[in-house]
C-alpha cells in the first residue's frame, strides 16, 4: 500500500537523521536541504540511495537537483510509489 505524505516525511526524516545527525523533527516540508539543513551534495546522494531502498522507488540522477526542499522529495517519492 502506498505511504501517505506524512509517513514518507517521517521515513525521510529518519534517513536524514541517520546520515547527517540532524534532528528528525527539524526535517520539515518547507526546509531546503542545502540552505536550511546545511546538507551538502554528497550527503544528498547518500540520502537518495537510502530513500530509494526504503521506499522502493527510483530517483534518477537528473531528478535529484530538482529536489530543493524536503517537500519536493516527499512529493516525488509519494508520486513515484507503485
Amino acid at each position, binding site marked *: 500500500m502506498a505511504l501517505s505524505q506524512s509517513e514518507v516525511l517521517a521515513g525521510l526524516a529518519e534517513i536524514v537523521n541517520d546520515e547527517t545527525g540532524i534532528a528528525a523533527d527539524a526535517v520539515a516540508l518547507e526546509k531546503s536541504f542545502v540552505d536550511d539543513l546545511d546538507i551538502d551534495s*554528497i550527503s544528498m*546522494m*547518500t540520502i537518495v*540511495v537510502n530513500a*530509494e*531502498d526504503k521506499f522502493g522507488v527510483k530517483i534518477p*540522477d537528473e531528478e535529484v537537483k530538482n529536489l530543493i526542499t524536503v517537500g519536493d522529495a516527499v512529493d516525488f517519492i509519494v508520486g513515484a510509489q507503485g
Partner: protein
Amino acid sequence: MSHPQLNQYTAVQFSRIYGLGAARGDLIVSNDEVAGPIDSSDEWIRQRTGIIERRRASANLSLMDMAVDASQQAIAAAGIDPSEIGAVLFSTITHPHQTPSAAALLADKIGANPAPAFDISAACAGYCYGIAQADALVRSGMAKYVLVVGGEKLSDFIDPTDRTISFLLGDGAGAAIVGPSDTPGISPTVWGSDGSHWDAVGMSASLLELRDGTTAWPTLRQEGQTVFRWAVWEMAKVAKKALEVAGVEAEDLDALVTHQANIRIIDELAKQLKLPENVVVARDIVHTGNTSAASVPLAMHALLKSGEVKSGGLALQIGFGAGLAFGAQVVVMP
C-alpha cells in the same frame, strides 16, 4: 586411437599474500595547488572528498620506476627470489604504450624474465582482479609465486581545469607476492562488471579522435554522481557478499581496505556494513589521493607499516571503478 594420458597441473589447496610493497609519487600536491583552475577551495575538497593532499610523480619518476620500487619491496618482504616468480600481472590504465605490455618490461627489470607477464585493464578494481587471478594461478599449480602490481601515473592523464575527477587523483604503485599456503589466505572473489555504465568514468576521447585532430590530449572524466551512487550502494552489496562467501562476519574483520575514491564513499560503505568500531578503516586517501589500481595495496601497506593492523589480520579489500568493474575478497594480511 589410443594416446597417453595427459599430465595436468597438480593443484595446491591454499594461497596467501606473502608480502607487500609501496611506492608513492615524490611530490606532495596540496589542495590549494589544484583548486585554482577549477574554482574550488581547500575546504570544499576536504569536506567533499577527505583529501588534504595527494602524491604525484615528478617528470623524472615514471610509472615503471614506481612499479619496480614497489615490486622489489614486495619480493624482499616475501623472502623469495625473483627467479621463482611464475607470473607477473600488472594492473594499470596509465601505461603509455598500447603494446607491448608494462608487465613484460617490469618482469625483466626485477629479474623475473622469462615469467609470463601481462597487463590488466580494470582501473580501480584492477588490483583485486589481479589478486583473484594470482590466487587461481597459485592454487591450480600453474605458478608458484605471482607478482601482482597495481600502479598508475594518473597525473599524465588529467586536465587541471576538469572539475569532475582530476583534483582527486594521485600517482603510485602497490605490489603483492601471492604464493602457496598451508592455511587459507585469500577468500573466493566476488567480481564483475557493468558495461551499461561504460561512459560513467574513463577517458574523455579515444586515440583515434586524437589522431584525427578532433580532440585535445584525452584525460580522465567522470559522472561523479552516477559513480558515487553506484559505489556506495552496489558496492555495499558486493562487500556483504564477499564476507558471506568468505564465511566471516563484519565483526571478524581487522580492517576494511576499500578503493580510495572518496572518504565519503569509504565512510558510507563502513556504515552500510555496520562495522564495529574496532575494525580499522583504511583512509590513505587523505594524504595520497585516489591512485586507481594502486590504492588498495598502498592503503593496506600503510596500515601494516603504521602498526594499526598487525600481520595475520583479516581484511576485506574491495576495488571498484571504470568499466564499471568491481572485485572484492577477504585476505589475511601479510
